[in-house]
């Protein structure tokens, strides 16, 4: 009997879905717009986060070692720094490599190159290039380096030069994250309210039908379940269409976005597509909760037995 009842409820809901075409159309359209809005915001969030991270990844701090330091001392410094909390990598550039790099960088300055060639010894010391897990870790790493046992072997660091950039990137990142969170919550709320009210209007327009069912002595499940299932059909149809629309938009925009973001060596569309799956699944779950809640709330008003 359970399966017969369930099959009937499913039949009523599919009948309602197809026979109230314009109501279904309006409802699904609203849901598609709500979902696409959230998807676009999620995509902007993913892209901006990735751009900020990519800029952050390009930042490193060079520690210049005094020319007097032996190879053993340099490797001891490297090992100690590499063991620090927050250090992602330490790359060693030897004195000779540093000199070669310097010459390569300034090969158009013959005076400088000739002067270097005149010297008997290599005036450029070795360099350790430190990358941290987070830009916030640099101050701690450099603070440690300025006080550790090998501090007298350190010639200089370029942290001061990079400090301002790191600070600006951090501030930008925090601002962007907060902004996207706020806008996301705001539009998420607007979308939820829109979906909720559309469903309420849909059920309001069919209140007469609900009243008749009530007069006929239909039970709770016979009245409410088909309407709830129908609302879930709207949601799923809207969700599927929104995915199609969103991904079509991404594919359409791909050539333009790659030109626009040419400085940034990642295909933004390829980055957004797989990373949007979480957003899409979360919005379906939240959408389902809103749909069921809204339907029950609206039907209850007209189906008081």
């Amino acid at each position, binding site marked *: 009997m359970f399966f*017969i009842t369930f099959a*009937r409820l499913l039949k009523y809901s599919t009948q*309602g879905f197809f026979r109230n075409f314009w109501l279904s159309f309006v409802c699904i359209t609203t849901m598609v717009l709500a979902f696409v809005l959230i998807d676009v915001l999620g995509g902007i969030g993913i892209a901006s986060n990735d751009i900020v991270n990519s800029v952050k990844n390009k930042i490193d701090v060079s520690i210049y070692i005094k020319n007097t330091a032996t190879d053993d001392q340099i490797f001891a410094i490297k090992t100690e720094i590499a063991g620090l909390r927050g250090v992602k990598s330490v790359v060693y550039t030897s004195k000779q490599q540093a000199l070669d790099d310097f010459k390569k960088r300034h090969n158009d300055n013959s005076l400088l190159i000739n002067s270097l060639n005149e010297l008997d010894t290599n005036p450029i010391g070795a360099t350790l290039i430190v990358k941290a897990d987070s830009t916030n870790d640099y101050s701690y790493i450099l603070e440690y380096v300025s006080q550790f046992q090998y501090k007298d072997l350190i010639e200089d660091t370029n942290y001061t030069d990079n400090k301002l950039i790191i600070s600006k990137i951090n501030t930008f990142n925090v601002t962007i994250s907060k902004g996207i969170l706020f806008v996301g919550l705001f539009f998420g709320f607007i979308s939820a309210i829109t979906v909720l009210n559309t469903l309420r209007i849909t059920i309001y327009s069919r209140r007469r039908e609900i009243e008749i069912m009530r*007069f*006929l*002595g239909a*039970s709770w499940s*016979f009245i409410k379940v088909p309407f709830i299932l129908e609302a879930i059909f709207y949601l799923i149809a809207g969700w599927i269409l929104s995915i199609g629309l969103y991904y079509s938009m991404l594919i359409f925009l791909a050539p333009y976005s790659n030109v626009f973001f040419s400085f940034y060596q990642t295909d933004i569309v390829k980055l957004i597509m797989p990373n949007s799956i979480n957003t899409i699944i979360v919005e379906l779950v939240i959408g389902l909760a809103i749909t069921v809640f809204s339907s029950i709330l609206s039907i209850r008003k007209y189906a008081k*037995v």
Partner: protein
Amino acid sequence: MIEFKNIGKIYNNSVNVLKDINLSIDNGEYVCIIGRSGSGKTTLAKLMTAEEKPTSGVITIDDWDITKIKKKDIPSLRRQIAVIFQDFRLLPKKTAKENISFACEISGDFGSKMNSKIDQLLQVVGLGDKSKNYPFELSGGEQQRVAIARALAFNPSILIADEPTGNLDSINTEGILTLLQDINNMGTTVILITHDKEIVNSLNKRIITIEDGRIASDRVNGKYLI
């Protein structure tokens, strides 16, 4: 048997619609309840289907005190007391057959037995060839016939007809009255609520007259005297 004992109904603590109603209707009876608009006839019907609760008094249907009915038992009561209305109250997005099958399904019918019951009901009301029509494709008389078939799908012991011919022409009215008489002949109690003098006089049944919320008269084989 339906029994009203000292029934009173007051809306919003001020509008006294029914006053001290005492009434009993036997199983299988055909009763006309008449009165002017606003006299309290429809409220009386609403009390019988537990759509409204009386302010005072007790209503029993076969010893079931429906004034104390629990919400969960109301659907079961409404499947025993079928109601047809002036405005038919058909489900607009369901065909004639689906409207009747909805009632059958509510009652727990299924399978080929249910299908043959629906076909039989459509034949009884003379709409065998209009089973696939939606309500908007049917005339008023046909819609009321579907409503009656739907009411009969419950195999109700009581059928309340609240102004069932109010929207119909004289030919359709006659058809509906004949149907109601047939239903009564099958043993169902029929309560016809109307203010149509000609209908009441042609039926020659028990007539209960309501005036200003009170029973003004209760006569067997009566005539419309207001």
